[in-house]
């Protein structure tokens, strides 16, 4: 589903954030991406959604080589990938319902079908009763669940999350991770960047570890 082949990312400043990273994440697999801050976790995720462009190497997502994607095609790549952000990135002047509906509106899906899917997504994160509220009225954990509902509403094949539990207490953090785990069991490929090793021990999933831009664990031809 996601294949990194000797991917290097060098920023214009000259900083090399990723150095020849190679790994394959299979369809329906779930993995944690760990490493200290600055190790390149966020950069790796940004390459997958083409927020950043690879400098060298090949990157295949959902059978498409995205190193050669034209800017016109980028929106369509992003519609196949659900992303959950640490800072939620919600629209605070719109209701929970409208926030979750946004990917469907953007993709031009009809109103009736969209409402049905939004409710299904909100149901999965247990927020169906709060669809008319504004994000600011919700707790941090609830806001993150809105972010997750928005990420999955378009039924993406890949779900990425960048420190999704960063600001939450352990109990809420576990709840969020369990939601990701559920989606994985429904068949979604999941890659989560986190610094909380607790989840790794608890959920026993594959681990990819970055250190100063190099993959030192979980990569191709490496033992776990």
């Amino acid at each position: 589903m996601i294949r990194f082949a000797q991917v290097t990312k060098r920023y214009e400043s000259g900083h090399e954030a990723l150095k020849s990273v190679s790994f394959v994440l299979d369809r329906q697999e779930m993995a944690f991406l760990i490493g200290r801050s600055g190790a390149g976790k966020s950069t790796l995720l940004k390459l997958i959604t083409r927020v950043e462009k690879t400098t060298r190497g090949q990157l295949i997502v959902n059978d498409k080589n995205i190193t050669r994607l034209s800017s016109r095609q980028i929106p369509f790549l992003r519609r196949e990938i659900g992303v959950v952000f640490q800072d939620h990135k919600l629209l605070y002047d719109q209701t929970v319902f409208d926030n979750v509906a946004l990917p469907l509106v953007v993709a031009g899906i009809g109103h009736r079908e969209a409402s049905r899917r939004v409710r299904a997504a909100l149901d999965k994160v247990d927020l169906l009763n709060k669809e008319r509220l504004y994000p600011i009225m919700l707790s941090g954990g609830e806001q993150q669940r809105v972010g997750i509902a928005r990420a999955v509403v378009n039924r993406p094949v890949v779900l990425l999350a960048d420190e999704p539990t960063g600001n939450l207490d352990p109990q809420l953090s576990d709840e969020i991770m369990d939601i990701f785990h559920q989606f994985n069991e429904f068949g979604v490929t999941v890659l989560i960047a986190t610094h909380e090793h607790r989840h790794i021990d608890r959920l026993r999933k594959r681990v990819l570890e970055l250190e100063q831009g190099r993959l030192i664990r979980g990569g191709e031809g490496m033992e776990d």
Partner: protein
Amino acid sequence: MSDYLVRHAQVFLSSVGQLVRSPGSSLLTVLAIGITLALPTLLYLLVENVQNVTRTWQGRAQISVFLQLDTTNEAARALQDVLAARPEIESSRLITAQQALEEFKNQSGFGAAMDILSDNPLPASILLHLKTGHDQPELIENLVRELEANPEVDLAQWDMAWIKRLHIILRLVQRSVLILAALLVLAVIIIISNTIRLAIMNRRDEIEIMKLIGATDSFIRRPFLYGGVLQGLLGALCAGAIVSACVGLLQDPIGELVSLYHGDFSTTGLDPRSFFTLLLAGSALGWLAARAAVGRYLGQIEPA
């Protein structure tokens, strides 16, 4: 297709919503656009009306053809027939030398003095009234030259040379209006593109998020383009109202002034066609301005 239309309608309505949500600044922008568009429209109407006035005056354009003193009445009458047959002549009147003398005696009060003279010093003359359509200054001058080439004609006089001057002045005004209109149109584009630029900057985060979840550039562009068109359209409506008010206020004094000279002129306001053109121009300017702002600033916003 219907889905596509529904989506456009939604975006359009949300643009209306954006305007309504900030009524103060929207109103000010629309007013500024309205005033800016009203100025060239008013000047255009001014030129139109002045042209209408001169058109009615020129309907009266006449040429006096004075004949040589030794021309006989028969020759004069023959010449009148020839001239009356010309296509540009509406009507003609022959004033024989005797008639001219009578008229002069009656009107000047020098009747007794004229009796002393043994010969009639006044020539016969033919008055020519021109058809409308043949009354442009250039055509009249050509005609005058042709008439003077006639051996019986001593002098052909066109006593409305000042109309020629008016025409030149009008042309000057017309061109000034055009230049002014171009400048004001530029001002409208700047006003609208600036408000669109501010709208884009205010919604920076939203645009980033939209891009992150797979919105195409044209999807993001759409509400801003509609916003621009809407502002232009409302501005044009506002300009129409201003112009109508101005014409309404000026109508009576102009009517009074005109009736002092000759009463067959009424001011033309904004007719439906011009009004429609104004709305179309406003919308087009709004679209252009939004397009410029969007092209310039939307590309700068990329998620990071």
